[in-house]
C-alpha cells in the first residue's frame, strides 16, 4: 500500500522536471535567435519545441508527466538582406532562425506558471503530512 500523499509529491516533482526542461528549451531558442548557418545558403538554427505525455507510474498507480521528445518547429525561416554575412547566398539573402521572441516569452511565462502550480502542490502535500504528524503532539 503506497501513501497517496507521497505519490502526489512524486507526481508534482515529475511536473517540475518537465517544466524545467521546457524552460531550458525556451532559453536555447532565445539564445539562438540570431544563429545563422556557417556556409552560404545553409540553414540557420531551427526552433525546438517540447512534447509532453502522461505516463502511469506502476508502483504508485499515479499519472506522472514526462517529456516525450524534443521536436523541431517545421515552420519556414525568414530571410533578411545582409550580403556581408558569411551565410548570405548569391543574392545576398540570409536565412534567419524561425524563433519568435514573443512566442518564446509567452512559453516562458506559461512554463513559469505551471512550475509554480506544481510547487504549490508539493507544499500542500507536505503540509497535509505535517498536520497528520501533529496529531501525535499535544
Amino acid at each position, binding site marked *: *500500500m*503506497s*501513501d*497517496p*500523499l507521497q*505519490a*502526489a*509529491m512524486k*507526481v*508534482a516533482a*515529475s*511536473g517540475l522536471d*518537465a*517544466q524545467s526542461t*521546457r524552460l531550458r528549451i525556451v532559453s536555447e531558442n532565445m539564445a539562438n535567435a540570431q544563429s545563422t548557418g556557417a556556409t552560404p545558403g545553409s540553414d540557420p538554427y531551427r526552433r525546438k519545441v517540447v*512534447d*509532453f*505525455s*502522461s505516463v502511469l507510474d506502476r508502483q*504508485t*498507480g*499515479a*499519472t*506522472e*508527466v514526462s517529456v516525450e521528445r524534443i521536436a523541431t518547429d517545421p515552420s519556414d525561416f525568414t530571410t533578411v538582406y545582409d550580403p556581408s554575412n558569411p551565410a548570405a547566398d548569391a543574392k545576398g539573402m540570409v536565412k534567419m532562425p524561425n524563433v519568435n521572441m514573443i512566442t518564446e516569452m509567452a512559453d516562458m511565462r*506559461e512554463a513559469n*506558471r*505551471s512550475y509554480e*502550480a*506544481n510547487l*504549490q*502542490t508539493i507544499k*500542500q*502535500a507536505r*503540509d*497535509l503530512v505535517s*498536520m*497528520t504528524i*501533529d*496529531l501525535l503532539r*499535544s
Partner: protein
Amino acid sequence: MRPIQLFQLAATQARWLSVRQDVVAGNVANVNTPGYKAMDVEPFSSLLDRMNEGNQTMAADSAMHLVSDDPNDAVKTEPVRDGVTIKPSGNSVDLPQELIKQGDIRSQFELNTGLVKSFHQMMMMTVKS
C-alpha cells in the same frame, strides 16, 4: 444504537482526501499534456454509502478476477464531466479549478485532524483521572 466510530470515519476521510490530493497533483502536472483528461475522485458521501453497505473493495466483473485489497484503491477516480473546457490540444485541465480543489482539501484536512485531536483529548480526559 450503533456507536459512533469517529476515528474510523476520520481515517477514511483522511485517506479519501489524500487520494484526492494525489489526483489533483496528477492534473496539475499534466496541465500541458496534449489529450490529457482531468480526473477527480468520487464524492466522499458515495464512498461512505458503499462502506455502510459493507462493500469496501473494488467491484469486479467476475469472481475470478483479482481485486486489489489496497484501501486506497477503494476510492474511485473518474474523469471530470461537468463544466470542463477542452483546449485545442484536447487537454481538459483547468488550473484555477485545481488550485481551488487544493484549498478545499486543505481546509477539510485541517478540520479532520482538528476533530481527531479534540476527540482524542476527550478520551484522554475520561481515561486519566
